[in-house]
Every structure is written in structure tokens, then in C-alpha cells.
């Protein structure tokens, strides 16, 4: 049977259409599940009575692990802010990952630290620990500082896991801004579940341009730059729609490295953070879930949609490109490492839904889209483009992108309505209209480049820089207008908020 050129083109068109329809269906289901989950969450947490929790002597103790690398400029303010979190029993464990600046010296001087000759566990192999410091001042009795040889963020967190005292660990980026009740809210899935909870994650919000006072968000403002606003929409889609929906079906594969809580025992049994992947936050959760499933222990992963953690997103195209490149590599590495789970009913929702979804719509989507673009260029080159057809195809993709972004806006309005001013809503709408044309192709290319880099064997994080969240204690500081570039931010962006690109693939 002979197939002519036109037939090939028609078949390709049908394949692209089918793929697009499957993605659309996935997003529609995700929106529905997410809506149900958000509604139930709001109803379940209608009774604001946290006093009982704060007064209880039986609340699980938490170790907050905050890796720091070259944080000299902000570390004191950040730690002070962490020390004021509302929770009855917690310790802050700052892990100085071989900083080349005066991070450790500043910590020692400001918090009156002395070297504690305690023996520490080595559940997970890490770089050498040079010392563990505690404070002589009882006001800082829940602060512990670990000084270690540089080994990267995963290694620093593993060291924290080895040296911390409590059974629940909360891994954070030291420069993230946490709401005062962040720990109280994130621990709830651990408390209010009949199944074993191995981890719980929260929503990461964009702090760019927000007004910060004493390390807390005072006023939520919309960033001035288009790139940051586009990421706000992306975060809405990823967290309010994607993660909530996956949480509903207990299929979450990722808890952001910027703010996640874990059962320490399970983390240790799973082997801790993997140093050899650039997406270790996702990899750890997948490994933990896989282990629980293989051991046939009933368990779940919690997700809290309240805005609890605020972070700065990249404000330059170059930095964004590096970040998305790395996220793609992290996703592909994780899926490759755990390929056994793909389509494997033994792993339940994870095997049948989550991992295939990630493979087709996170990993393959930008590649297929890229080939679609190439296909279009090919047709154009040979003069085969019917512009009416192009307009229709483009129209359907564009209209769906807008629909999806507006759905995300709806979720924000329905749930937490953080951007209160009407003009913010209008600007976000404008961003939604422009994003598929300006922002999305760029992110798609970054993801494709990530795949190329992975094939070429690139393993590095890539240098990440942030404009910076400023000195969090500074009064009424506007994030966008401050701050020299902070080396610490480079380290923190290495692992932070892998929000998954799921919602950026239209």
C-alpha cells in the first residue's frame, strides 16, 4: 500500500490532534478533582481553633532543616525569622555547607554558639561534619548549627537528617519566607490521618514584589515584570490545579524542595536525598512511595493548599532557562531511575496514572510540541502551509491555553484570593493572553534543551542567580527594588521549587 505525502501529513495532524485532546482531557480532569479537593479542604478547615494544638504536649516535634551556603548577608535575619515560627516543639538545624564566606562565624557570634561534642548518627553517608554547634543562650536552645565540608544541597540535607533530633523533618530553603503558622498547618496531614503519612507538602507562592516586614509577607503585590507574572500563573496551575488534583487521587510525585515535611524514619529507610540527580526533591518522594508500596504498607502523602511558603522566582530569561533546563533533567532522571513503576499496576495510582502522566505530559510534551513546530517549519519551507488551517490549529491551542490560565485564576479566586486589588486581576488576565505566545515557547525550548543536555551527559546544576528577596527584617521592603545578587540565592535555587511544568504544556 502506497502512502502519499498528503496522507502522511494527515496522519501526523491526527496524531497531534489526538495528543492534544488527551492533554486537554487530563487538564479538565485535573481541574475537576482539584476543585473538589479545594472545596473539601475549605470545608474541613472551617474551624479555626489552633490553640489546642499549640497547648498540647503530645504534638510531634519537628526538626526544620535549613541548608545554607554563602548566606553571610542574610543568614542571621533568616534564622531569627525561623526561630519565631508558631509551633510548640521544634528545632532549627542550619547546615553550613562549607560556605566560603563568614556564614558560620556570623552564626557563632550572633547566637552565642559553642561546639557540642555530641556523637551524631550516620544513617546516610555524607561529606565530613566538621562540627555541631549549640547555643549557650537559652533563648536559642532550639537552634543547632552543623558545619560540614561542601557537598551540595542534597548532601547538606542528608547531614541535617543525620544530626537532627526529632522524628518529623521539615526541609526548607533558608531564604524562603514562611508564614508564622506554616509548621502548624503542614503537620496537620500527619495528625489527621488514619493512614501512615510519609510526607506533606505545601503551596509555594511567588514573593517577588511583595512587601516584607520582619521576615513576613505583609502585603501581597503583583510583580512588575511579565516573566514573574507568567510564573505566578504557572504556579497557580501547578499547585492549585495540578498538585491538588494529584493529592485527591493520592498520586503526588513531587513535594517542593523549598518547603516539605517528611517522616524521618521513612526518609532514612529510603536512603535520603540522592546526590546524583538534579531533581532530588522529586526523586526522594518517588523513592519513598515506591518503597512503601513494595513493602505493602498503607500510607499517604498530604498536601496543604494554604499559602505557607513564599519564594522568589527568576526575573531574567537566562536564569529561567537554566531553572527549567534543570527541572526537565531532574524529571527525566527520576522517571528513568524509577522506570519500573511505569504502567505497573503493582504501584497503583503511581504506576497507572502518575508516572505515565509525567512521562507523556511533562517529559514528552515539550518534545512533541517542538517537533510540531519543526513540522510546521518543514511544511512552510516546502510551501505546504494552508494558512487557514494554521490559523485554526493555532486558534485551538491558543484558546485552550487561555482557558487553562483563566481556570487557574478562577481557582485562586475561589480559594485564597491573595491578589486583592482589581487591577492585579486585569494584569494577570493580560499576562494569560500573552503568555502562550511569549513565555510558553521559551519554557518549551528550555525543556527541550534540558533533554539535549541530559543526552550529552550534563549533570551540573547550572549557575542560578536571583535578584534576591532582600533583607527580610528590613521594614517595608519591596523585593524587586532591592538587593545585590546573593550567592546564597544561587545555592537555594539549585533545588527549590520544582513546580513541575505540567501546566505550562499547552
Amino acid at each position, binding site marked *: 500500500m502506497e502512502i502519499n505525502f498528503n496522507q502522511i501529513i494527515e496522519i501526523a495532524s491526527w496524531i497531534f490532534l489526538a495528543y492534544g485532546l488527551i492533554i486537554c482531557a487530563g487538564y479538565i480532569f485535573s481541574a475537576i478533582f482539584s476543585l473538589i479537593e479545594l472545596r473539601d479542604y475549605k470545608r474541613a478547615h472551617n474551624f479555626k481553633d489552633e490553640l489546642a494544638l499549640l497547648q498540647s504536649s503530645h504534638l510531634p516535634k519537628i526538626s526544620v532543616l535549613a541548608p545554607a551556603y554563602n548566606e553571610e548577608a542574610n543568614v542571621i535575619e533568616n534564622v531569627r525569622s525561623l526561630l519565631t515560627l508558631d509551633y510548640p516543639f521544634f528545632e532549627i538545624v542550619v547546615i553550613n555547607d562549607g560556605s566560603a564566606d563568614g556564614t558560620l562565624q556570623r552564626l557563632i557570634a550572633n547566637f552565642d554558639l559553642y561546639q557540642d561534642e555530641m*556523637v551524631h548518627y550516620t544513617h546516610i553517608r555524607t561529606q565530613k561534619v566538621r562540627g555541631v554547634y549549640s547555643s549557650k543562650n537559652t533563648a536559642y536552645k532550639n537552634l543547632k548549627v552543623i558545619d560540614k565540608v561542601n557537598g551540595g544541597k542534597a548532601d547538606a540535607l542528608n547531614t541535617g537528617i543525620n544530626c537532627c533530633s526529632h522524628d518529623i523533618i521539615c526541609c526548607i530553603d533558608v531564604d524562603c519566607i514562611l508564614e508564622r503558622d506554616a509548621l502548624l498547618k503542614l503537620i496537620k496531614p500527619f495528625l489527621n490521618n488514619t493512614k501512615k503519612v510519609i510526607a506533606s507538602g505545601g503551596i509555594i507562592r511567588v514573593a517577588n514584589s511583595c512587601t516584607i516586614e520582619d521576615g513576613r509577607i505583609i502585603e501581597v503585590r503583583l510583580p512588575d515584570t511579565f516573566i514573574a507574572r507568567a510564573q505566578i500563573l504557572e504556579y497557580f496551575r501547578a499547585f492549585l490545579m495540578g498538585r491538588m488534583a494529584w493529592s485527591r487521587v493520592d498520586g503526588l510525585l513531587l513535594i517542593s524542595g523549598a518547603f516539605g515535611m517528611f517522616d524521618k524514619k521513612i526518609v532514612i529507610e529510603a536512603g535520603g536525598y540522592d546526590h546524583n540527580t538534579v531533581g532530588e526533591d522529586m526523586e526522594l518522594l518517588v523513592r519513598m512511595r515506591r518503597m512503601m508500596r513494595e513493602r505493602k504498607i498503607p500510607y499517604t502523602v498530604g498536601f496543604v493548599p494554604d499559602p505557607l511558603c513564599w519564594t522568589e522566582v527568576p526575573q531574567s530569561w537566562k536564569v529561567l532557562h537554566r531553572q527549567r533546563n534543570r527541572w526537565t533533567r531532574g524529571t527525566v532522571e527520576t522517571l528513568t531511575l524509577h522506570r519500573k513503576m511505569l504502567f505497573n499496576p503493582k504501584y497503583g495510582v503511581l504506576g497507572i496514572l502518575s508516572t505515565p502522566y509525567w512521562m507523556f505530559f511533562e517529559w514528552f510534551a515539550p518534545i512533541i510540541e517542538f517537533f510540531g513546530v519543526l513540522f510546521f517549519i518543514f511544511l512552510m519551507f516546502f510551501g505546504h502551509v*494552508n494558512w487557514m488551517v494554521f490559523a485554526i490549529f493555532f486558534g485551538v491551542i491558543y484558546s485552550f491555553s487561555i482557558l487553562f490560565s483563566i481556570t487557574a485564576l478562577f481557582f485562586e479566586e475561589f480559594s485564597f*484570593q491573595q491578589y486583592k486589588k482589581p487591577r492585579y486581576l486585569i494584569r494577570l488576565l493580560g499576562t494569560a493572553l500573552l503568555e502562550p505566545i511569549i513565555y510558553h515557547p521559551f519554557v518549551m525550548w528550555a525543556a527541550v534543551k534540558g533533554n539535549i543536555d541530559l543526552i550529552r551527559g550534563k549533570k551540573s546544576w547550572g549557575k542560578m542567580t536571583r535578584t534576591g528577596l532582600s533583607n527580610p527584617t528590613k521594614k517595608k521592603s519591596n523585593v524587586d527594588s532591592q538587593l545585590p545578587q546573593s550567592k546564597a540565592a544561587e545555592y537555594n535555587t539549585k533545588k527549590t521549587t520544582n513546580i513541575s511544568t505540567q501546566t505550562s504544556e499547552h
Partner: protein
Amino acid sequence: MDILPTSFKDWPIILEINLVLGISFLILAFMLLCVVFYLRIYKNMRNSRKEKLEILLLDFINNYLFNDEFDKSKEIMEFGARHLKTGFDRKIALKQLLIFHENLKGESSALIKELFFGLGLYNFLISDLTKAAWYNKARALFVFCHMDVKIPEELVEPLINSNRNEVRQQAILYLLNQPADNPLGFLDKVDRGLTLWQQIYMEDSLKNYPGDMPDFSKWLDHKIASVVIFCLKMIADHNQFENTPAMLKLIDHPDPGVRQQAIISLRKMEVQEMLPILIHNFPRESTALKQEILKTIREIGSEKELQLVAPSINSKDRALKIDYLRIARYFNPKIAGSKLKAFNTDQLGLSKLSL
């Protein structure tokens, strides 16, 4: 060469599908956008209504409580008819009454209850309680509990085994807060495990229980492990030393969670009689329980007991060895810092650690 015809009539199906989809998406996007704007306006209006009603309620409640010339029966009828027309209005009124009830005592508190009944809020909540929606039931129970309003027990009891955690918790808290000789009597009827969350709220309610604290040992043989664990915690918190013999038996309970809590509670109560049992059980316990036993020896035992468990520590179990070393150093601070340092710096240095 045009691969597809340009005439609308001859369009292939794929184009028609795309066109229909594109238009549908645009219409949906527009509709959703309208919903977004509507939501914004609706929420703003609702907040504005809430603020206005709160002011009216504050004024009304203050007059009701403190103004002697206030015609209570007439005003209460008028206020209910004029201002509490919808479910939303009644919810705001309930919130305000709860705030007043929490902050007032004695006669004023009784007047707040009077208002609660007078404004028809009791009937409103009873109808919620009989509705199917779990969140209505949970809210109704929450209000009845916090307003100290008694309702027929047959409405509450079935809910202590509800499928929803939230309803179960509110039902438990309601029953616990009722003035009764046996506030924990409902535990006999519980056939689902208590979450930690529920336990914490129960613990909090018991702190305010006006009568004699119940004897928690009644439920130490309960079929549900979490109920036993809760009672063990409470026995220690309320220093019910008379229950130590029953607690000692639980060190051999088949459920490891119960065994662990029994050790923790007995340790908290400094019951040294458990040490011989713990030392005897040590070799067959899990690592987590062994760590708990070591911790107990540190707190209420001596170096002698520590040495008794030493032979049962597996040479490969580094975490236990570290615990052991820490406690050994606690009992005998002469263990040189340099030795500890050597242990820390050697990642696999098990051989260097001599117990």
C-alpha cells in the same frame, strides 16, 4: 500545492473538529472569566454584608446584655426577621455569639444562650445536623459544643463513628464537653481509631473538664490501639499512679505502638518497676523500642542497667550504639571527647567504638 481545500464546504473533519474546539474553548474561557469577575464581586459584597451585619450584631448583643431599657422579646423578633434571613446571615450571627460566649461568664453567658435560642439558631443547627452534608453536621456540632447547648444524644451518638474525620471529631468533642460523670463514656462505642488530631483536642477538652478526671484505666483493654494509647498518655498527664500495675502489663502488649506509649508514659511517671521488664524484653524489641528503652534507662535508670542491655546491642546497629554511647557518657562524663570525635569523623568506625 495546497494540502487542504480552502472552501469551507469541503473542509475535512479534522479542521471542523479543531474549529469547534477552538470556539468552544474561547466561549468557555469567556464564561469562566465572567465567573472569576462574579466571584470577585460576590466575595466583596459578601464581605461588605458581613461587616455591616457584624456591626449590627455587636450593637444588638451589647444592648441585649447591658441595656435595661431594651425590649428583649420584641427586639429579638424584629432583629431575626429583619437581619437574619439567609444561612449566611445566621452563620455570621453564630460566630459573633460564639465570641461573646467565649469571653463572658455567668449571667451574661446565659443571656447569650437565650439569644441563641431566641434568634432561631438552635433550630437552624438542628436542621443542619439532620442534613446529609458532613460539613453542616460538623459545624452544628462545633457550635453546640462551644455554646454548651445540650441536644438529643441520639442525634450525636451515631456520628462518633462517622466516615468523615471532621464529623467524628466534633461529635467526640461535643460528648466530651457535656456535663456528665463519665465524659469519656463514648469511648465504649467507638469502633474507629482515634487520630492524633482527635487525641489532642480530647486532651485539650479534658483540661477544662470541671468534674473529677475519669479513671483512664477503664479503656486500657480497649480493642482499638489508639484508644489505649490515648488513655496511656492521659494517665501520665494526670498522674494516675494507681494505674501503674495495669500499665506495666501493657509493656508486653501485642501492638508495638501501645508498648511504646506504655514505656513513654511509665517513664514520665518515673515508674522504676518497669526497668527489669524492659531489660528482659530488650533483645526481642524493634530498634525504635530499643531506643525508647535506652532513653528510659537514661532518665530513670543507672549505668548498671545500661550495661545489662549492652550485650543485646547488635554490633552493626550504629544508631543504637550511638544512643548507648551518648547515655554512657551521660552516666560517666569521663568518656573522652576525643573518643567521641573519632567516632564522629570515622563514617564506618564501628570497630573503634568499644562498648
